[in-house]
């Protein structure tokens, strides 16, 4: 049995903080659905398991509901299995009832009840749909009692967080026993919730997202191509890239004035294509005013290079002699600059006050050089 395991599409996420890039990021998530379909067709996979969080919110607009459905519909030879997650739990008068009313494509299955479903010859899907945003019970426990014919392949489909049982059951949200696959006799347990392609054990995997939506989760959108030779066999899991954008988080500590050369030098080697890179860059260190001005220009160039740049600057402004003389050689302005410089390093002042002094010094520099 071959399946494609994916999860956490979170269709409808707004990405507003990315400004004009938001629409591209939203569209990329829908594009990922098509790429999943394409991958399934290319690999001859008949079933795609979506382990929860198909939609980002429980009350999306109808057009948002229709977006992935229409795209899934195009791949008529593939059956898409959708499971409610914590972002889109199955509740009365909820999202999934709306989906039904809108019309579910015939190749899309909604697993809203914890009942085994036939996937194919001697293969059963045991879903554990979430009915709330935060369950304190392990809903996969039902799988233990779900009976299937002897010799049938049992594939579990669930959404939640792997929890260490015995450490206070009832505290974790949507907890899942890491040994569920073994307890329930599963050949494979397809999980969603963590936005990271991550194995829990040989039979239990998190697919991650087909299109990342945050830094420090997964760099690129991924789906898992899972091959289960027979019941009881260890599944073979291949991560496949299906995403458009790369999400990276880098940090630079400036210690030398000439440390920043070209913007490209700051990019990770695996960030190709750079135009699709969503980069979070943290820059720290102490720089002169002149260097700080130069850094702004450097960041402008980098922003033009990548798809989106989130620059987090934790810089201390340490004006040097040239900076101060640029402001003035003498007189009130020079004295003011000296005073602000002292305040920026005064340990008796709070960090906020020191930061304000640095900012004031920058303003003075800009005014003096205007």
């Amino acid at each position, binding site marked *: 049995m071959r399946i494609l395991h994916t999860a956490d599409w979170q269709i*409808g996420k707004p990405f507003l*903080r990315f400004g004009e890039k938001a629409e591209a990021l939203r569209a990329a998530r829908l594009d990922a659905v098509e790429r999943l379909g394409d991958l399934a067709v290319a690999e001859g996979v008949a079933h795609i398991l979506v382990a929860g969080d198909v939609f980002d919110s429980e*009350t999306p607009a109808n057009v948002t509901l229709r977006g992935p459905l229409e795209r899934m519909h195009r791949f008529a030879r593939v059956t898409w299995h959708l499971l409610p997650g914590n972002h889109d739990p199955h509740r*009365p*008068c909820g999202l999934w009832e709306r989906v039904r009313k809108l019309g579910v494509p015939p190749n899309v299955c909604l697993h809203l009840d914890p009942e085994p479903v036939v996937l194919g010859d001697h293969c059963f899907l045991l879903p554990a749909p979430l009915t709330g945003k935060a369950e304190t019970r392990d809903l996969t426990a039902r799988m233990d009692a779900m009976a299937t014919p002897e010799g049938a392949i049992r594939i579990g489909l669930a959404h939640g967080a792997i929890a260490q049982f015995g450490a206070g059951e009832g505290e974790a949200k949507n907890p899942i026993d890491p040994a569920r696959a073994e307890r329930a006799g599963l050949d494979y347990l397809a999980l969603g919730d963590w936005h990271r392609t991550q194995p829990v054990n040989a039979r239990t995997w998190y697919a991650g997202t087909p299109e990342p939506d945050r830094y420090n989760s997964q760099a690129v959108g991924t789906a898992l191509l899972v091959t289960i030779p027979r019941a009881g066999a260890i599944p073979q899991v291949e991560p496949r890239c299906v995403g458009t954008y790369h999400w990276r988080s880098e940090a630079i500590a400036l210690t030398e004035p000439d440390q920043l050369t070209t913007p490209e030098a700051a990019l990770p080697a695996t960030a190709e294509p750079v135009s699709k890179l969503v980069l979070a860059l943290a820059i720290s260190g102490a720089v002169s005013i002149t260097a700080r001005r130069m850094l702004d220009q450097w960041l402008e160039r980098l922003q033009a290079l990548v798809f989106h740049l989130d620059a987090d600057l934790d810089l201390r402004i340490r004006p040097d002699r040239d900076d101060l003389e640029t402001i003035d050689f*003498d*007189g009130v302005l020079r004295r003011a600059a000296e005073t*602000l410089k002292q305040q920026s390093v005064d340990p008796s002042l709070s960090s906020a006050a020191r930061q*304000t002094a640095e900012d*004031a010094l920058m303003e003075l520099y800009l005014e003096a050089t205007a």
Partner: protein
Amino acid sequence: MIITHIAVEGVGRFRGRHVVRGLGPGLNLLCAANEAGKSTIFRAVQACLFARHDANTKETRALGCIGAQLSARVEVGFKCGDADYRIEKAFLRSNATRLYKNDRLIAEGRAADEALWSTLDLSPGARSFEDSAIGLLWVRQGQSFEPVRPSGEGQALLSRMIEAEVGKVLGGERGERVFTSVTAKLALEETKTGLAKTGGAWKAALERVEAARRALDDVRATLASLEADRDALAAKLRERDGLADASALAQMQADLNLAMRERDTAIGLDQAAQKAATEAARCELAHERASDKHQRLIALDQRIAATRVRIGELDRKAQEEEAALNAQATALTDQEEAFAKLGAQLAVAEREADLARARELAAQDAERLADLDARLKQARELRDRINLLRQTFALVNVAPDALRRIEQAARDLEAAQSRRAAKAPQIAIRLGPDGVGRVTSSGEAITGPRDIAALEPLRIEIAEIASIEIAPAATPEDAQSVNRAREKLERELVVVGAASLAEARERRAKADDIVTEQRGLAAELAMIAPAANGKDGVALLEKALCEAQAKLAAFVGAAPDCSDREALREQRCVAEQARDTLRREHHELQRALLASRNGVAAEKMRLAAFRGDREAAHEKLAEDLALCPDEERPHKLIALAAEAAQARALFEQAQAEATRLRTAVPSGEQRAAIEARVKRLTQAIAARHDRLQEVERDIAGLRGRIESRGGEDLGERESALADALALAERERARIEQRLAALRLLRDTIEACRREARETFLAPVKRAMRPYLQTLFPGADAELDEHFSIGGVQRSGSEIEPFGSLSDGTREQIAIIVRLAFGRLLAERGQPTPIVLDDSLVFSDDERIERMFDVLMQAAEKQQVIVLTCRSRAFQSCGGRPLAIEPDASPQTTMDLRAPLRLVGSR
């Protein structure tokens, strides 16, 4: 610069050349009277040093000579550095200028002007004297107390002086630009109180944050409401599932059926028990009836026996009563016979007593008849006399009203006469010895003294001597008045028939007497023959007389002699006594007879009662015997006794059965519990059904609400708004961080400027301090960066604004500031003379002495020239005395006849 001499010619009142010589370093005092030309010379020096020789300004025109069209020539000698200079200028006409250095001409005309300025380090072509630096130190008359406000030129000069020492500290134009720019940026964003300003980016950012927060709160509230509806829907669905549970319902129904069966069973037992109780009651009633019947027959039997006993007793008593009655009847008969006899005797005695009384009364009537007759006669006489008096009264009476009218008329007449008489002249005639017979009055001879009231015209003739006509003053109206009064009186008298008032009064008095007498007679008549019931007393008396006569005539006609009244009376008394005795006896006998009769009647009644009772008893006996004759009664008694016993047995049996059945019936509490259970289960099943319907309705409603809101893309909107809020807050934080930086920058620059200003002004303050503390020990002054004095602080007290000081103090401070500036310039190699024209006019004696000390201190550093007209006040000033003198020396440098080479003449 030290001015050494001054010469003017053709300036003001100085037609000829006048000089002021002897000027030197230190304090120079020119003390001259008013109109001496001190200020004219001061203005001339100013023009000579600072104005172009060809200038045609108000100041130069003011130099013109009074009463002459002359060229105003001014010469000023001064030392500058090591050289002696002399500048000669001619204004208004034949304009010229020459500059000598060490008596050598070094420049003429415009070049001389500019060379002079260059020597004095002045900006060329200053518009007015005040614009120049030296204007700072030269104080005109009347301006000594004005606050010192150096012009830009003066500030620049001072700044150059100070900056050479303390360096360029104020930042100059660049610093000002930066400060202005920062302040302007802040002013765009915040108000003076630090609040966000409308139209600024900060305000806009705050509003965006607020708007985003509100929108997000609204959406979250809606989501919360939606979530609440979802939770409610889930709860309703669970409740519906519970309510629709068939097994639970079936169990409830089974419980209900069981309870109903128990209830029916209890009802059946209760009904059976009630039936048995009813039967027992019926048996009891039958038993009671049988028993009662038996008892009644027993009572009847007993009653018959008792009645018979009673009848026998009553017979015996009746017999006894009959015997007693017969005895009483016999006694009564005897009493009645005796009573009848006594009654006849009494009647006889009554007749005799009456007759005796009648005789006595007849005798009294005869006496009374004589009395009546006498009285009647007297009464008639009185009546006749009264009638006569009445007639007389009618003839003589004058009514009181008529008398009053007559009296009033008489008074009126008298008054009219008096009035007329009052007007009549009083003639008193007294005859002399020869006058007798010779005087006549109205033809009547006067023989003796005579007093005449001339009511009418009077003529008194004195024989052949004179005739005196006297006309009274009374008018015809007076006479008419008298006549009217008299006529009225006469009318009134005629009415009553009197001739005069006296007669009328006499008649009135007489009428009163008649009335009095008449009243007395009437009273006497009333005593003799009183009237009664409206009838005349005489008539009543006549009637009484007639009745008495008739009565007497009637009695006298039936009896013998009635004249002995005493005997008659005695006879009467005896008869009455006998009568009375018989009456008493009769009365007693009557009472005894009555008592006997009552006794007989009572006896009869008792006898009748006994007989009645006996008859009633017989009737009763007959009734009872009719109910049950004697021959039947014993048998009946036995039968009824048996019936009663049987009925009792049946009753006891029925009662036992009823008790048994009642015991089997559940108690009231048990039945109530069963009933309650039935009711509870019935209600529960109905309520379950109703609740199920209600829950279905709630579910439908919740579904409708959720479905309608579920399509509002609330979740996406929430995410979008959350992102928007985060963006707005970041933007706001960024703006606020920048504003904080700008504020810090502004404040830092301000602080540095303040510090720099203090440093910059330190030399000025240092220069001022010795002078200031001579005047006010421990005092300090406040200056701004434009060298304007803001206020004075005396001995650590608060700073007093310059404007709040008195005129004298302001003048003193203003002079001190100028002296300080001069000292500053002098200490930095640019000594400049200070000229004070008519200063210290507001200073008191003590202050002026201190100011003299200040001037002396200042004169140590620079030349001080004081012009004053107050010789007495400045006696102790010290200094070099100066004077304005005409210059008669032939070696004048300013020779009016010596033509000057005109340079650049107009």
